Every structure is written in structure tokens, then in C-alpha cells.
């Protein structure tokens, strides 16, 4: 059973890496979108495993995007360096802000993270160096927009996120997260330094979101504060994907992101304007009938077949 898992992962990875050989530019663009949402959904889930519900995905995504744009424009960072700047900026800001915000819990934490995103947006919208409401254009996107190379960068980010998620699930971080989520008093009484773990996990997941935001800017070559870079889509879509795929797992958000992105895109072509309706119905049905998400359903099936 164990070797099967590794084999499947290896095959999937080889297929994913060699994808540009077999498919055209449009499907590759599609794959980039999937990878963006996947990394966002997964990083959101990684924080949720500690019981903290964040609506700040778009905030850190946008922050990373602007970090990439500014470092490339004003300091002439090369694309990969600017992506690193995005991750570090988002991670550092999250650690600093988290120092006070992570004393809040539940709805209060959720609302404050939403407000954080708004604060970043308002700042970006009003500063001259960030281009105000008009935003900015990148002089040159990474690899001059070469489809295969940009896809590989996105794939690397996706795989990195999955690896971090697996590390979180296999090490003591898993035990810290679960105990904090289940019962903070028991966790603290068992010696868990709750605040320390929350700050670390919040910083890491925000860094991933910043990195993805940076990559988004390198892909499309612009930042624009109101409708794009801080769009509420980057909050709602990843959360829906993680819910549909199955929370507290690595593969749930991955499956959810692939499924919902593909469905959304194909519906958009078939029934323009009507696709959101169908999309909503899928969400409602999925959440009503598969409360554990797709991963929960698969695990249940395995259990039944084992008995």
C-alpha cells in the first residue's frame, strides 16, 4: 500500500512535468490557474488545521503581488528573486501582524484577517509608488511569457506547497495543530506553546499566499488594486475548493482545486453567464451530500470495503 502511494505520486509528477510536451498554450494557462488556486486552497487549509479561519488569503496574495511588482520595477530584481521577495514580505508581515492578531479567536480572527486584506488594498490604492488606483505594468513578465517555463515555475510552487503540507501532516506540527484545534486548554496543559505555533504556521501559510500572488503578477504582468490583485475571488474560490475536496487533508484541497477550476472553465465556454449558477449548485450539492468533502467520501468508501 505504501509503495503504491509513492509510485502514484512519482507518475503524477512525471506527467505534470512533461505536460508542456503534450498540450498547447491554452491548457497550460488553465493548468497555471489550477496551480494558483491549489496553492491558495492548501495554504488556507494548513492554517485551518489549527482551528483558525482566515479570510486574509487575498490580502497576502495581493501583498506578494505588489512586492514582486515593486522589487522588479524599482530594484530590477529578476523574476525568481522577486518571487522570493514576495514570499518573504508576506511571511514577515504575517509574523508581525500575527503577533497581535493571533490572540483573537474564531469570528474575531476571521473578520480581522478580512480587514487586513482591505488595509493592504487601501494602502496600495493610495500610494504613488504603487501606481494608485490604476495599478502598474510589469516591464517584462518572467521568461518573456514562455508557456512551458512559466508553467514549470507554477508547478514548482504547487509541488512546494504540497510538500510543506505533507511535512505539516507528518511532523509534530500536525500534533500541535490538531490539539490546538480540538481543545486549547488541553493543548496548553500538555505543554503546547499555542501562540508560538500559531505565529509560525500563520507566517508560513501567508508566505505561500504571497509567493502565489507574486507568481500571478509575473504571469499576467500587472497589478491593479480594486478588481484583480486583491479580488475577493482569491478568498472565496480557495475556501470553496478546500471545502469540496475535504478539509484537514493534503489531497482534498488539491482535488477540489483541479475539479472546480476545470468545471468553471468548461462551463464558462458552454453556458456563458449561466456558468456561475451551475457552479453554485455543484457547491451546494457537494457540501450537503459530502460534508467531509471528496477525501472524506473516499476514506469512507475505503473503510466500508475494508470491513
Amino acid at each position: 500500500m505504501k509503495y503504491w502511494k509513492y509510485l502514484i505520486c512519482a507518475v503524477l509528477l512525471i506527467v505534470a512535468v512533461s505536460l508542456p510536451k503534450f498540450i498547447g498554450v491554452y491548457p497550460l494557462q488553465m493548468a497555471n490557474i489550477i496551480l494558483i488556486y491549489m496553492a491558495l486552497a492548501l495554504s488556507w487549509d494548513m492554517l485551518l488545521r489549527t482551528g483558525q479561519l482566515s479570510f486574509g488569503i487575498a490580502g497576502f496574495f495581493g501583498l506578494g503581488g505588489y512586492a514582486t511588482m515593486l522589487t522588479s520595477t524599482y530594484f530590477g530584481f529578476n523574476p525568481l528573486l522577486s518571487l522570493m521577495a514576495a514570499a518573504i514580505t508576506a511571511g514577515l508581515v504575517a509574523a508581525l501582524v500575527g503577533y497581535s492578531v493571533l490572540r483573537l479567536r474564531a469570528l474575531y480572527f476571521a473578520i480581522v484577517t478580512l480587514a487586513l486584506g482591505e488595509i493592504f488594498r487601501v494602502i496600495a490604492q493610495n500610494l504613488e509608488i504603487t501606481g494608485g488606483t490604476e495599478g502598474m505594468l510589469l516591464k517584462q513578465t518572467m521568461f518573456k511569457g514562455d508557456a512551458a517555463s512559466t508553467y514549470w515555475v507554477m508547478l514548482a510552487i504547487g509541488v512546494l506547497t504540497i510538500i510543506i503540507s505533507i511535512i505539516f501532516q507528518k511532523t509534530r506540527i500536525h500534533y500541535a495543530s490538531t490539539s490546538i484545534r480540538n481543545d486549547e486548554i488541553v493543548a496548553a496543559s500538555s505543554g503546547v506553546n499555542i501562540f508560538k505555533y500559531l505565529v509560525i504556521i500563520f507566517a508560513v501559510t501567508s508566505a505561500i499566499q504571497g509567493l502565489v500572488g507574486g507568481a500571478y503578477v509575473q504571469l499576467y504582468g500587472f497589478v491593479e488594486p480594486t478588481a484583480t490583485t486583491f479580488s475577493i475571488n482569491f478568498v472565496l474560490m480557495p475556501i470553496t475548493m478546500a471545502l469540496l475536496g475535504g478539509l484537514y487533508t493534503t489531497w482534498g484541497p488539491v482535488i477540489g482545486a483541479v475539479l472546480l477550476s476545470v468545471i468553471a472553465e468548461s462551463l464558462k465556454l458552454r453556458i456563458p453567464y449561466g456558468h456561475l449558477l451551475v457552479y453554485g449548485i455543484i457547491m451546494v450539492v457537494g457540501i450537503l451530500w459530502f460534508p467531509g468533502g471528496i477525501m472524506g467520501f473516499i476514506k469512507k468508501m475505503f473503510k466500508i470495503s475494508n470491513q
Partner: protein
Amino acid sequence: MTILKTTGVTKQFGGLVALSDVNVEVNENEIVGIIGPNGSGKSTFTNVVAGVYLPTSGKIEFCGQDITQKTTHEKCHAGISRTFQLMRPLIGLNMIQNIMVGAMFGKGHSLKEARKRSAELCKFLDLENVERPISAMTALEIKKMEIARALATEPKLLFLDEVMAGLNKDETMEMINTVRKIHSRGMTIVIIEHVMRVIRELTQRVVVLEWGKVLCEGTYEKVSCDQRVITAYLGEEAEC
């Protein structure tokens, strides 16, 4: 040797005085019982000493160290561990993983070492089938698992907050033996209990609380014949 000493510990919740000027000492390798009517401050005392609440005033010394202002996990690291009056298993983890949380974060063991030590603790407490989820465990097993989780932090002082509650006669007997076994390994234990038989069988010294104050203190025989304790808690029918 005294390992726990509280001096004038007071805890107020708004206008309610839950503990007032409590002075308690616990000596090494002793089993001390804390009894008292509902609302007398037994659990609050545990919570103040083990760190869930900070005392309003007073001083808590543990192993000669002032731990009054320490947070919950710092007190755990200092060597105080506890179980809870109501069962509080971590439902996202299975039996041995629950215990591993204590070993990893209380004592800083690696994952592998924590698993090894937790398996030993399961054996010591007769817990079998250690990979079971919480939903497949009996109440007695959950209680034992919570004791194991507390022991996994390798404490110097263990608080047992009403571990017998909800157990039947046979299970209570088994739990008494379990506590004896833990004590025989050199553990100092503070046990909060309503079942007087348990107090009689296990403790060397009893502290009686009423309205957040220490009413009296002494051996079981002395305390159970004290007229004030009979009036406040035991009732006239109690036998000496």
C-alpha cells in the same frame, strides 16, 4: 520536602470570590486529597495552580521556584500536569497520538521517542489497541488515556480532577489501583474527589475547602470526624 506551596492564593471572578487566602502545601511523594461541596473551589484551585487562570493575588511556589505568573504551558514544562473533571480527549487524534502530544510538547521528545514512551505508558496503564480512535474507546479508557497524556509530560506533580466521576464500582476499583501504581513510581499526586472511599483508600492527607477557604486539613480519620466538615460536606450520617 515541600514541592508545592501556595501562600494566600485568592481568585476572584468579578465580585465572586472563588478562592480566598488558600495556603496549601504538598510534600514530595505524597497523595493529598482535596474535598469539599460543589462550588467550594476545588477545580478553581487546580486551574489556578496548573495555570488555566492566574490568581488575583497570592503566591504559588513549585520546587522552590515562583511560578505564580507563568502561563499554562510554562507550568507544564516546570513539572505540573493535570487531568480534567470532564473528559477532554483530542478527537482529531487516536489513543496513542493523544498521549504523544504530552510527550512531545511537555517534555520535548522527538516524534519517534514520544511514540516509544507513549507505548510504554499504555502498557503501564493496561491500555490496549492503541491505534483506536476516541469514538471506539470506553469512558474508563478515555480517562486512563488522559492520565497517560498527563504522565507523558513527565511531571513532578500530578493533579487528578475527579477521575472517578462516571465510573461504576469495578471501574472505580481499577482506577484506585491505577493511581496506586502511579504513586508507587514516585509520583506526587493531588486528587480531587467526591467519593470518600477513594479519599480514604488513597490519601495520606486531606484538605477540605468550603466557600473558597480551607476549612480544615489533616488525615482522613481526623478530617472525617471534624464537626465542621460533617456539617459543611459529609452530613450527619457519615461514619468516622
